[in-house]
C-alpha cells in the first residue's frame, strides 16, 4: 500500500460558522484505492468536512488537494466534473423522480447533449440518451435494484433509497466516493450487506472510498485507516487497531466504559 498516490489531501483546513469552529486546522490524506473512515461524535465536523471537499462550503483557511491540485475554489458542479461523488447523511435523492432519472442525473459530467439537439432530436442526442439509460439500468442491476427503475425514488424502501443514492454517486464514475453514514438507520443485517457492498465497489471498480460512519462494526470491519475528529480537530489517526487502543479516542468518543471493555478484549487476544 505504500506505493499508493494520495488522491485527496486536506492541508490545515478550517471552517467557522459565525464564531463556532466546525473544522479546525484539519490535516488529512486519502491514499488511492483505499477505504478511509472519519469517525467522531455528533457535531464533530465530519459532514462539514465533506461539504468543504465537495465545494458546498467555502473554507476559511487551508487547502484541499485532489491529485495534488487545489480544488478549494471550485464550485460543487466543477467538483462533480472532476469525478468526486458523495452521498448524504439524510438521504437526498430527487424523491419525485424515478430511480432511473436519479441515476441519469448522476451521469451529468459525462453527458454533453445540448438543448438545441434536444429540440431537433438529433441522432447524437438520441444515441447519448439511449446509451445513458442503458448504463443506468446496468448500474441498477449492479446495486441489486432491478425492477425499481421506473419507481419514484420516494416510494422505494429505505434500504433501497440508500443504495439508489450510492448508485447515483457511482453513475458519476467517481475516482473517489464520499459516503456519509451509509448504514444509518439500517439493521445489523443490512449494515453488513452495505459493508460488503462498499468493499466490492472498491475492489471491483477501484474507487477510493472516504467514509463517515457511526457503526463501529462497519468502520473497524472495512477501513484501512481511521481518522478521529472531535470538536473539529483531529485527535487521532491510524489503523483500526491503533484507534481502538488510543486512550484519547476512548475518552472522547468510544466512551470511558468502552475502555475497560476494550482492555479486556485486547487482553484476550
Amino acid at each position, binding site marked *: 500500500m505504500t506505493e499508493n498516490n494520495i488522491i485527496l489531501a486536506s492541508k490545515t483546513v478550517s471552517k467557522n460558522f459565525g464564531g463556532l469552529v466546525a473544522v479546525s486546522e484539519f490535516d488529512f490524506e486519502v491514499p488511492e484505492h483505499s477505504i478511509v473512515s472519519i469517525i467522531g461524535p455528533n457535531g464533530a465536523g465530519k459532514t462539514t468536512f465533506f461539504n468543504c471537499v465537495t465545494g458546498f462550503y467555502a473554507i476559511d483557511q487551508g487547502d484541499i488537494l485532489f491529485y495534488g491540485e487545489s480544488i478549494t475554489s471550485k464550485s460543487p*458542479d466543477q467538483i462533480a466534473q472532476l469525478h468526486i461523488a458523495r452521498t448524504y447523511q439524510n438521504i437526498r435523492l430527487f424523491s419525485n423522480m424515478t430511480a432511473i432519472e436519479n441515476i441519469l442525473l448522476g451521469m451529468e459530467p459525462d453527458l454533453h447533449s445540448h438543448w438545441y439537439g434536444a429540440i431537433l432530436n438529433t441522432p447524437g442526442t438520441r444515441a447519448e440518451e439511449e446509451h445513458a439509460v442503458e448504463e443506468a439500468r446496468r448500474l441498477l442491476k449492479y446495486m441489486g435494484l432491478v425492477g425499481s427503475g421506473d419507481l419514484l425514488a420516494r416510494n422505494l424502501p429505505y434500504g433501497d433509497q440508500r443504495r439508489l443514492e450510492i448508485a447515483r454517486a457511482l453513475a458519476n464514475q467517481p475516482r473517489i466516493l464520499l459516503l456519509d453514514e451509509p448504514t444509518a438507520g439500517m439493521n445489523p443485517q443490512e449494515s453488513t450487506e452495505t459493508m460488503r457492498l462498499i468493499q466490492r465497489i472498491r475492489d471491483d471498480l477501484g474507487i477510493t472510498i472516504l467514509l463517515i460512519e457511526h457503526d463501529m462494526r462497519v468502520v473497524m470491519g472495512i477501513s484501512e485507516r481511521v481518522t478521529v475528529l472531535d470538536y473539529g480537530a483531529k485527535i487521532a489517526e491510524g489503523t483500526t487497531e491503533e484507534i481502538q487502543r488510543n486512550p484519547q479516542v476512548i475518552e472522547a468518543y468510544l466512551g470511558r466504559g468502552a475502555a475497560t471493555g476494550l482492555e479486556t478484549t485486547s487482553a484476550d487476544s
Partner: protein
Amino acid sequence: MITKQSIQLRTPLRFGIIAGVVSVCASAIGLVVLFSERELIAGVITMGQILIFAPTAALAYIAARDHAEGQRGIALLYGSLTGVISGIPSALLILLASAVNLRQFMPNVSPALIEILSFGLPPVAGSLAFLAAMTAVGLIAASFSLLPSNIKRPIFNGLLWTFTIGLFSENISSRVRFFFGSEFNKLIFTGKALDPFVAALIFFLAAGLTVWQGRRQTTHTEPEGVSTSRKSRLRWMTYAGVVVTLLILPLLLGSYLSEVLNNVGLFILMGLGLNIVVGFAGLLDLGYVAFYAIGAYSMAVMTSQGPLGFGLSFWAALPFCVLMAAFAGLMLGIPVLRMRGDYLAIVTLAFGEIIRILVLSDLLKPVLGGAQGILKIPKPEIFGLVLKQPEQFYFVILAGVLIAWFVSWRLSKARLGRQWLAMQEDEDVAEAMGIRLVTTKLLAFSFGAAFSGLAGALLASKLTSIFPHSFKLEISINVLVLIIIGGLGSLPGVVIGALILVGLPELLREFAEYRLLMYGLLMIVMMLAKPEGFWPSQIMKRELHIDEESEMLSAEAGD
C-alpha cells in the same frame, strides 16, 4: 323538539352563516345584479339567482349528507335550518336598505338589487319571502342528498348541462343563427336565453344519456387488451381529428369567437413560457409581463408606420422580437441567479414594475411613445394577403402555440428538462451532480422570455397599436394563475387553464370587472383543494402529496 342526542345545531348554524355571508357578499359587491341580466332559461331563472342560492344549496346538501348520520328527518332539518339561517343576512339587508340609504356607502346595494332579492315585494314581505325561498332551497338540497345516487347523478348532470348551455346561450345562439338561420334559432332561444321547453328537453336528454351510460357500463365492460395496432390507429385518428379541428375552428366559430380564441392563444403562448420557468425550473417569476412588453414594443418599434417606427415587415421583425425578449430574460436572469423562492418572486415583480414605469415615463417617450403608445403597427402579410380578420390571424397564433408546445415538449423529455426538475427539487444536490445551475437557470429564463416575447410581438401586430397600460402586473398574475389552475409543469394544463381563465370570462363579458376577484378566490381554493391543478403533470401530482417525510430524517439524525 330536540329530543335525539345526535342533533347538532352547530353544523347548520355554521354552514348557514357561511352561506349567508357568501350570498350577501355576492349581492353587495354587485355580482348578483350584474348576473341577473343573464338569463339562463327565459323567464325562469337567471345567473344572479343561481349565485344567491348556490352556496346555500351546496352547504345544505353537505350538512344533510355528511352530518345527519343517515337519519332522514335530521337531514331535512339540517337542510332547512341551513337555508333559514343563510337567508337572514340578505333579509336584514333588504330591511336595512329600506330604512337607510345604503347606497351612499355601498354603491352596489341598489334598488335593483333589493328588487331582485325581495322578489319585487315590499320590504317586510320581501325579506320573509326571501327567507322562505332560502329555506326551500335548503330543504330541496337536503332532500336531494337523500336520493339514491343512480337518481342523483342523472338529475345533477341534467341540471349541469341545461345551465351550462343556458349560460352560453348568447354565443351558441349566434352560431345557430349563422348556420341554420334565424327561424330555427327562434325555436330554441327566446331573446338571449334558452326557451323553457328546450331547456326541459336538454335536461331530460342529458339525464337520459347519463342513465343510459350508467346501464351500458354495468352491462358491457370494455375488453381488456385492445390490440396495439388498433391502439396506434386510434391514436393517429385522434391526432388527425385534433389537427382538422384546429384548422377549421375559426370557420365554425366566426369572427367574435375567433377573436376570443386568439386571446386565449396568446395566453397559452405565455403560459407555455412561464410554465418552463415556474413549472419546470421552479423559479417563481412575477414580472413575466416585462417580456411580453418587450416583445410587443420591439415589434411596434420595428414595424410601425408611424413616426416612431422603422417600418419593417412583420416577418422580418418577428425573430428579432423573440431574440430581444430572450436576451432580456438572460439579462434579468443573471442578477437573480442566487435568489430563491419568495425573494425571487418579489424581485421579478419589481422588474416587471420597473419596465412598466420606464415605458410609461417621459424618459423613454421619444422612443416608446409614453402613455400615447405606438400606433399604426401593420398586420402580417402572407403572399400579399394581409391577415386582417381574426379568423386569419388565428393561424399565426396557432403556429406560434404549436412551436412553443413542441419546444416545451421536446425539452421536457430531454436532459435539460431533467436538469430543471432536479434543480426545482433540490438545488444543492443538483449542483453536486455536476449541473451548472447558472446555465440551467438562464436557459429557463430565456426560453420563458422568448415565448412571452413571441406572444407580445403577436399582440402588437394583432392590435395594431399598443399602450403601456396593457402590460400591468395583472397579466403576470393572470398567466401564473392559469398555469397553476391547469397544473404546474403540464402542457395540456396550460391550454385548459387559459380556456378557463381567459376564454370563459370573455364569453361572460359582464364578468370583466370581477375577473380578478374570481382569480383570487380560484387561487386560494385551488391551493387548498387541488394544488396540482386540473390536468396535473406527473411530477406535481407526486410532489404535492408528500407529507412530512423530509422532517423525519432531520428529527432522527443530526451531525
